[in-house]
């Protein structure tokens, strides 16, 4: 394989306020080959994709395509350079037709400069048929399920006659059959001589279709090579190498009586037959691949959505939270996954964020008492070792990890019985991660029950007493966290057969 790469990245660095997403990384993509980009959540993979497609501008570094050094100031310039991507979040248009989703921004024109719908539909149909997607190009995108939406995203990428095709976790929401179809497609692309960057957390896929790999850890490139020469365990070691220096807190589990029990929770479209129980002083881990429906279950427990069936029992009494306010009153709190959208109230200072659910306590007959609020906020933020210049600092100016601490502080201040943490360390640096983990241990030691949703294996295995594994809206298994092999969890979550995960 002495070919020259089509696309080369060198010395790329990108920092967001408070987070260094990428540091001096490099990457080469070769024609007719699939390169797998491997790394944990938050390793910087998607950020790199956005840099290659003109969405973000790197702070430093060069992009070279077919031997020419380029800058990609807009998404359009990336199309023109022949780089196209299927992004991790589906960035498509629900209200537009499938054909238009495929061609928006580069639609075929007729000789009057008008959009040529006929050609557009015909070409879309052709592309979709070549993918055997079974999607009618004339229907609106919103009528498709998430898996088919992903296929549309793939079709969009194919419609741009690109040299480089990037796929950021294209299979996360696809069924096995659809994944197989995608493989066929990727083979076609390879034969066409396109360079493909494939991002996935699933090793079976990587071994099935990738030729090369590059591993990122915490925004740095830590290794690369040829798939056929490398053992999976070696890649895993590269990828999670940091678990060596991350020691999970030791705790003496003093598990008490049952606190919260879910019995057969079901929802028409999101989850079914969810039953689990968490006891006093216990950490119950929820593992699964992204999109498994764990957040939806937790939000139902928290009263955000109403399950259609099932019951919740808290301290022996059936509860029926109709809103988060009810759940908080009952003693169940939830640290959401989408911190910016659901967790903190950006635009307000730290102390207001912390006191919001506890206003009842800090106020006197409905009138605010700022001094009490500051006292409450100080008590909890200092215990979490929050790094901020003052309690009146706007939360939007805090780093992600510190924002997370504000959310946790907010809930601890309500003195809950059960705390649900959805991806508690997502996007948090190693140091803060240890602090959050230490803190969770402390919480259970004080008699709280913790439910922790996490997609990070080391975290789930390091912290949980028991682990619930979910896949496609259902619980696959509930395991005691004693002598578990990581592979078991991965297999259960991905639903793959025994021999693949060697």
């Amino acid at each position, binding site marked *: 394989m002495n070919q020259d790469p089509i696309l080369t990245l060198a010395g790329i660095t990108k920092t967001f306020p408070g987070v260094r997403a990428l540091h001096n990384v490099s990457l080469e993509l070769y024609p007719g080959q699939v390169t797998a980009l491997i790394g944990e959540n938050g390793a910087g993979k998607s950020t790199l994709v956005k840099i290659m*497609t*003109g*969405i973000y501008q790197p702070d430093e570094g060069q992009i070279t395509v077919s031997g020419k050094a380029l800058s990609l100031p*807009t*998404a*359009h310039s*990336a*199309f023109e350079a022949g780089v196209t991507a299927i*992004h991790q979040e589906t*960035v*498509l*248009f*629900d*209200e*537009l037709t499938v054909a*238009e989703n495929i061609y*928006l*921004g*580069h*639609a075929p024109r007729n000789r009057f*400069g*008008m*959009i040529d*719908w006929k050609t557009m539909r015909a070409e879309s149909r052709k592309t979709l048929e070549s993918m055997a997607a079974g999607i009618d190009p004339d229907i609106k995108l*919103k*009528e*498709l*399920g*998430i*898996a*088919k939406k992903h296929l549309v995203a793939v079709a969009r990428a194919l419609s741009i006659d690109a040299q480089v095709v990037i796929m950021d976790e294209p299979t996360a929401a696809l*069924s096995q059959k659809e994944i197989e179809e995608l493989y066929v497609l990727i083979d076609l692309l390879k034969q066409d001589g396109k360079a493909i960057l494939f991002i996935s957390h699933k090793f079976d896929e990587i071994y099935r279709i990738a030729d090369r790999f590059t591993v990122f850890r915490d925004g740095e490139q830590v290794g690369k090579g040829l798939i056929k020469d490398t053992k999976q365990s070696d890649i895993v070691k590269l990828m999670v190498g940091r678990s060596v220096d991350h020691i999970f807190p030791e705790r003496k589990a003093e598990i008490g009586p049952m606190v919260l029990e879910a019995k057969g929770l079901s*929802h*028409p*479209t*999101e*989850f*079914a037959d969810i039953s689990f129980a968490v006891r006093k002083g216990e950490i119950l881990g929820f593992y699964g691949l992204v*999109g*498994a*429906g764990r957040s*939806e279950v937790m939000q139902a427990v928290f009263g955000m*959505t109403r399950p259609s069936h099932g019951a919740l029992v808290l301290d022996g009494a059936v509860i029926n939270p109709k809103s988060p306010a009810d759940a908080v009153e009952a003693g169940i709190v939830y640290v959401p996954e989408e911190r910016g959208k659901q967790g903190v109230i950006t635009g307000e200072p730290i102390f207001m964020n912390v006191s919001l659910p506890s206003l009842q306590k800090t106020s006197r007959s409905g009138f605010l008492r700022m001094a009490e609020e500051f006292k409450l906020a100080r008590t909890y933020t200092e215990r979490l070792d929050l790094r901020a210049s003052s309690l009146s600092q706007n939360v939007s100016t805090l780093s992600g990890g510190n924002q997370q601490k504000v959310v946790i502080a907010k809930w601890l201040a309500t003195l809950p019985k059960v705390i649900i943490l959805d991806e508690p360390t997502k996007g948090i640096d190693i140091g803060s991660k240890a602090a959050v983990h230490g803190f969770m241990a402390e919480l259970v030691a004080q008699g709280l029950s913790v439910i922790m949703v996490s997609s990070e294996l080391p975290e789930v295995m390091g912290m949980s007493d028991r682990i619930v594994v979910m896949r*496609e*809206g*259902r619980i696959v298994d509930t395991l005691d966290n004693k002598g578990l092999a990581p592979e078991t969890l991965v297999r259960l979550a991905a639903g793959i057969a025994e021999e693949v995960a060697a």
Partner: protein
Amino acid sequence: MKSLAKHREIWLGLAIIAVIILVTLRFPRFSQPGNLLTIFNDTSILMMLALGQMAMILTRSIDLSMAANLALTGMIAAMLNAAYPAIPIPLIMALCVVIGGLLGAFNGVLVWKLNIPPIVVTLGTLTIFRGLVFVISGGAWVNAAQMSPDFIQLQRAVVLGLPVLSWIAIVVAILFFLLMTRTPLGRALYAIGVNPTASVYAGINVGLTKFMAFVLAGAVSGLCGYLWISRYVIASVEVASGYELTIVAACVIGGISIAGGIGTVAGALLGALFLGVINNALPVINISPFWQMAISGTAILLAVILNARGERRKGRVILKSAEAAHV
């Protein structure tokens, strides 16, 4: 309910036909072709304005200054005509489009470059434009006697059985249809409304596109400025005052979602036509015109409720079995 949302325009068309039939039952002359054409002609201006507003609403913006823009451009046209009757009317019309477009561009620049919310910008320019009408005219009205016969008659000339005003509306509607469905700009207007983030990913310049929507709405307002003045043959400060919300109402009835990204040219036209038919029907069937406002208010609320039902987002589908049933 689902099909209603899908074929909003068809249902609205049926509602209009139902009103026409009901009125005809009591008053046969109402549905004579001549009268229907008159209704169309009477609604032409509102239809064009609704199309301009639609371009705004699609991008999640709103232009409250359209009626004031119309009054200002109309006054300029009338004063020009009164002072220099020799200027050919098509030139005045073109000038109106340009002036209206410039006024729209002023709104647009504030939104694009300074990122001030459209509703605030146009709330400000709404009063500024209308005040300027007074300033340039010194408060005096321009009346029929001061306008040249051409100025007044052009839109009334009948060509192939329809007044020129109707033809202008038809041409504008066709242009909008082509713009909305066949040009990248039109599609960008939709895309921005549906999903602004994804629009950036698709290579669309969101600020510039919004600016263009303002220019478009302004140009339409300008054109309608001349048409309005020559139709009602009086130019005054109060021309079309309060009309900005009628325009929005026509859009809303026509199924254009205030949340952006949803709406069609046919919808906007039918929404305006619905108001026009109600307007024309009430006096005919001897319902006091005082009922008109309450009826259009009810129509707006019903339209909003029905459209919202159609638009209501389905929840995410995670369960495989549910997905199969869903697709």
